[in-house]
């Protein structure tokens, strides 16, 4: 008897074939074979995992589920668990050389690529970082440190915010001095090359799945920059 198909599942409204399709998308990633070699259920990964300590989350369950090819459980993990991982890779102390954090990365990528609602929800409020990474080639910048976004960092953020421009001028390194919208000064040619990479690897299409508005904005800016280059 096929125990998988008779088991009560949490997301019974999603067809098994759809869950299987997503599972195979993860399993067929070329990195997959480097990340999973089977699982002893020893829990060594769990003992090292920061997210297991604070959430109902377990890298062991992820490795086990993938190794058993439990497609229904995989779907639950994809919807409920993956965004809890802190991507610290403490779990790679696994005696079987598994990389549960790496498996999480693969599952996340498939969730995003397929525009899963849960992935879109989780990444709300994330657009600014994606915008920075893709347009500036830097993921964080001084102008992201705003008091209303980091109130728990204390009065320091307010002091910083009031002085950002002059503090940035007061850094002796040429590449950083005065730069507030990126971490350092980057050549225009470098950014053009980066945009080419986003197009050539279809990375830009992934953004569309997460945030259509951001996608349109990025597309406009990048295409304009690349067209200018062609004209020149």
């Amino acid at each position: 008897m096929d125990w998988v198909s008779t088991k009560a599942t949490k997301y019974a409204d999603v067809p098994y074939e759809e869950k299987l399709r997503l599972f195979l998308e993860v399993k067929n990633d070329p990195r997959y074979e480097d990340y999973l070699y089977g699982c002893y259920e020893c829990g060594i990964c769990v003992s090292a995992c920061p997210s297991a300590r604070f959430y109902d989350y377990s890298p062991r369950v992820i490795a086990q589920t993938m190794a058993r090819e439990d497609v229904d459980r995989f779907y639950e993990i994809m919807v409920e668990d993956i965004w809890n991982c802190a991507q610290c890779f403490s779990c790679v102390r696994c005696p079987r050389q598994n990389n549960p954090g790496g498996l999480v990365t693969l599952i996340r990528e498939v969730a995003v690529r397929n525009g899963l609602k849960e992935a879109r929800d989780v990444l709300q409020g994330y657009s600014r970082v994606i915008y920075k990474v893709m347009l500036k080639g830097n993921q964080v910048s001084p102008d992201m440190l705003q008091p209303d976004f980091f109130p728990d960092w204390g009065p320091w953020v307010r002091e910083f915010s009031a002085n950002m421009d002059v503090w940035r001028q007061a850094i002796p390194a040429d590449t950083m001095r005065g730069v507030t919208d990126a971490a350092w000064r980057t050549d225009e040619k470098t950014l053009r090359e980066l945009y080419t990479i986003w197009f050539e690897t279809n990375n830009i299409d992934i953004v569309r799945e997460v945030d259509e508005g951001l996608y349109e904005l990025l597309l406009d800016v990048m295409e304009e920059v690349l067209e200018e280059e062609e004209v020149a």
Partner: protein
Amino acid sequence: MSAGFVPVEEILDRKSRPVLRDPREAPTHDLREELFELEAKGELIVMRVPEPYVEVTTKFGRKKKIPIEHTWHHKSCGQCGHIPGYSASIFWLHRQFGLDFLDPTDQTSCTGWNYYASATSNAVAQLAVMSRNFAAAYETGYFPLIHCGTSYGHYKEAREQLIHHKEMRDEVRRILDKLGKPLVVPEEIVHYSEWVHVMRHRIAERKVIDMSHLTACVHPACHYYKIVVEDAIYDPDIYGAQRTATVTGLLTALDINVADYSTWFDCCGFGFRHVLVQRDFTRSFAVLRKIEVMKNEVDPDMVVTHDTGCVTTLDKSQFAAKAHNRKVGVPVLSDAQVAAMAMGAHPFRVLQLHWHSTDWRPLMEKLGIDWQRYWEEFQEDLDAIRRGEKPGLTWEDADQPIVTVA
């Protein structure tokens, strides 16, 4: 007493016994052999570590070459953007030793944040971004020195993927062709803290601030030694090679007392997406599993680490915890900042301590550094910039140590 009960004395006794491993059983795989084979087949160019370099021992005994100069500084966005004294200290140290290096503008970050936080990326895009940076370094003739622990860990993993997956390699080469760049892979992926490690005795020779009365806790950065574990530096004289030697090596060379604590293996709580949109996790983890444990067990004068997110997380998470009367209040610095501080770097022009939020003043006072005097000096700099008399600080303002050897 239940059958499975083990008295705490016995656990402590077991923990105190060294773990003896047979070095002959260590994995000896050296990725560089495959790299050179691919180069011989004309698939890629291997960028050699320039002379002079120092050889160090990695986890399983492989010798790794760490270049001293002619380095291309692959900066970290988190360091440059939010803790600029970290990067400035790395450059300041190079300048103090008169070493040849390049701080490029033809560099993007690794974009690993897209990968680890939001997954709005894919493997080939990540490899192409890395390879574009390496090709840019190759064009200048300078060898990449990676400032960020995440970029370093990510690039080590990405290098393995590039070597082991021909279809990815072909795709990256096609993209680089479009950019007019060759596919270049450095012989070694080197983290700046490895450079600090091999420079530690030269740094100690130039020490002008006595630090022998300080106690520090080290937070080893996860992405430095947990991703591609075999490539981090280990030294039998440092924790019996049971932990990575970087950072601790520098601190002991500076005569600082490095105190152990029970949660050393734990991450800092950064979490990539968590530090931005789920900071309750980040704060709780940083405080409950790191800072408070250090406070309770050793009460250090400072925490020293060697990665971007760790400095930010451990430093910035302490404010909210203080409001809850948790035991916090330990300044957090990078190894490069501590090295520069020992050699007399200006606390604000170089170390840029005003970007740190946990109170660093008691540490300055314990070191006998009159921070108020330097803060006033720095305020004059800022006023001159505000008045338009100075376009900004330069190395001319920052190179001079605050204390010089008599």
